[in-house]
């Protein structure tokens, strides 16, 4: 099998096969898909015939996997990658290099033992990868990655230089995460919570269905633990104090456990995190057991986001993320450029990757001075609901809830004061939050449409919301917007954005934002 680095220049000759062991991984994939039917067959079927059926099924799948290996061919041409596959129905798929947004390399432990990787070619907006190559030798996968990088750009390099450049060393990393950073990442991110939620859901399901005896056997150690604490405190204080202490202890222990789990998960997912820039293409590699390798051309980045929760601030860290049209989730593309990094590093990264951001900006403009009153509406409504619910059960004591009012006012005031935006000829930036602060930066050339909305509340306060719609804004974060703009300012901003959006189109003489 020829490796890319010793072939002279691109379209290296002819169609190529997958790795000789690829049938094994295809088989494993299929077994996973058929695992449940197979198990059901084995469990429900009585006698030996079901086992025979299962064996026949596995043998059939193996034959199918081998046949797939022999019928799958891929061919890098000058225009793109051509894939031919199919046993009875032959399919030919042409994927132009320009359409490939990222080449994702996915390696589980088994892949790494064999020195192979699953390669996924992703294009913009599609739900499924454009092509999945299961599996390629690591050298081939790197070669393909390089080919897409060199040929996917606007300018194609001269053919003779490619071999040297493809063989060149990887550039120095922009960011790596050591154990200390991984530990902080685990503390900050609440990844553990998701796992706990899943476990609780699963456990409750199982416990509900199993007998009481089984329920006791699982819950017994917990109960014994609680009794121990309870007894210990009760021997010294009265019952209420014992209960409070017990509860505090159990809750505290549970929270600590979740954070510990988060740290472990951070180590598993982000061990060996490296961010590199290779000639305008960003590459991220990470993972302890399953190692993934994503890449993203800089010009495909649509928007930049910086997050800073209270925990981030206490630990002196921030998170830098990007939106891109391909792969709105971590599995399919680069989301986090810096999962956790000191603000200075984030600033450095932005200065290097998006100089137009002029980060950190000093020209923040405030939103409407009455914004805090709007921010108070929803918490107040919630508080009223809560107060009436408590009063229903507890009578006048429900009014105690209203001690939260000063806190809510403080929160709204701080949020209103922090909220703001900044704009110049190249980018728009938005910031919001109080305890959790968020910043968003969008190159104006990447805006897809502009929307101004006014709710009845907005109209009463002469405010408007400006939505900065870009491609690939993930559902969890939403489209960036500037809320509570004074109406005339919104108009000016709108007109200005329209000017720059059209001016930055490639038809105009002005050079577009750093995109190629």
């Amino acid at each position: 099998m020829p490796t890319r680095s010793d072939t002279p220049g691109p379209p290296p000759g002819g169609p190529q096969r997958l790795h000789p062991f690829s049938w094994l991984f295809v088989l494993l994939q299929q077994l996973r898909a058929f695992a449940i039917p197979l198990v059901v067959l084995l469990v429900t079927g009585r006698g030996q015939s079901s086992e025979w059926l299962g064996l026949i099924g596995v043998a059939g799948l193996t034959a199918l996997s081998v046949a797939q290996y022999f019928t799958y061919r891929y061919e890098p041409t000058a225009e793109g990658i051509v894939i031919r596959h199919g046993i009875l129905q032959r399919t030919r798929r042409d994927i132009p290099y320009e359409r490939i947004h990222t080449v994702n390399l996915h390696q589980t432990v088994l892949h790494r033992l064999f020195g192979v990787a699953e390669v996924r070619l992703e294009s913009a907006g599609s739900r499924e990868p454009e092509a999945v190559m299961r599996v390629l030798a690591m050298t081939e996968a790197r070669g393909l990655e390089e080919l897409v990088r060199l040929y996917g750009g606007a300018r194609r390099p001269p053919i003779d230089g490619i071999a040297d450049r493809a063989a060149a060393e990887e550039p120095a990393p922009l960011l790596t995460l050591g154990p200390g950073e991984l530990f902080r990442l685990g503390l900050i991110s609440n990844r553990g919570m998701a796992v706990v939620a899943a476990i609780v859901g699963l456990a409750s399901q199982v416990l509900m269905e199993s007998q009481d005896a089984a329920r006791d056997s699982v819950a017994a150690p917990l109960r014994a633990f609680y009794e121990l604490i309870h007894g210990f405190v009760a021997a010294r204080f009265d019952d209420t104090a014992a209960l409070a202490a017990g509860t505090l202890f159990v809750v505290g222990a549970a929270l600590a456990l979740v954070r510990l789990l988060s740290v472990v998960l951070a180590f598993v997912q982000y061990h060996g995190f490296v961010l590199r820039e290779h000639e305008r293409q960003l590459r991220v590699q990470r993972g302890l057991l399953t190692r993934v390798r994503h890449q993203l051309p800089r010009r495909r980045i649509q928007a930049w986001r910086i997050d800073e929760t209270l925990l981030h601030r206490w630990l002196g860290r921030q998170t830098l993320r990007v939106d891109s049209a391909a792969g709105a989730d971590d599995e399919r593309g680069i989301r986090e450029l810096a999962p956790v990094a000191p603000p200075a590093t984030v600033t450095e990264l932005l200065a290097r990757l998006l100089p137009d951001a002029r980060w950190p900006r000093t020209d923040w403009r405030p939103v409407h001075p009455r914004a805090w009153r709007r921010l108070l509406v929803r918490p107040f409504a919630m508080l009223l609901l809560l107060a009436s619910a408590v009063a229903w059960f507890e009578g006048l004591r429900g009014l105690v809830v209203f001690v939260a009012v000063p806190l809510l006012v403080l929160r709204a005031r701080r949020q209103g004061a922090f909220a703001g935006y900044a704009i110049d000829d190249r980018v728009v930036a938005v910031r919001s939050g109080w305890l959790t602060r968020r910043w968003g930066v969008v190159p104006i050339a990447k805006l897809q449409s502009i929307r101004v909305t006014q709710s009845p509340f907005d109209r009463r306060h002469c405010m408007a919301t400006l939505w900065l719609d870009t491609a690939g804004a993930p559902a969890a974060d939403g489209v960036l917007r500037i809320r509570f703009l004074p109406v005339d300012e919104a108009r000016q901003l709108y007109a200005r954005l329209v000017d720059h959006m059209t001016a930055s189109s490639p038809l105009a003489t002005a050079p577009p934002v750093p995109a190629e």
Partner: protein
Amino acid sequence: MDPTPVDAVSAADPTFVPTGDDGWQRLAPAARTVRAIAGAVAGAVIAVPLAVVVVTIAAGGGLLWPLLAMPAAVVSGALAGAWIGQARWRRTRWRLDAVGLYVRRGLIWHTEVLVPRSRVQHLDVERGPLERQFGLATLVVHTAGTQTSALRQSGFDEATAVALRDALIPDAARHADAL
């Protein structure tokens, strides 16, 4: 209401600039009827279960009340729906200029959207059964965006919708802006 002059739009002219006050135009007059009909149907449909709930709560087990209340609910629901439908029509304005397509709409939540010409990915003209009856069409402008991945506006004259589509068709020279 001033009806939109249909001939303000000509499919033959690619650099089409609309006429009218400040370039903002209303939807086709026929669309008002269609909106009212659609609104009336929706209003009537929503009114029925509401009336059932109210009647069962208010008037114990009597038979006369439901007999009277049902038609009244349906009629008032249809009337309210029709009024909302035509009010929406009245609020909706659009404009096409060198920059792109603007649409203003919304009865209570006001919205103005601009899709610049350079950001148009592709366009659809759709004609539903009711729309076909009245010679209307819906224009759908697709962008690469998330929130406005498709700007859908119904109530254009068929000729206007087609002319708008032709005027907004992405230029092949703009490929560098594509994703």
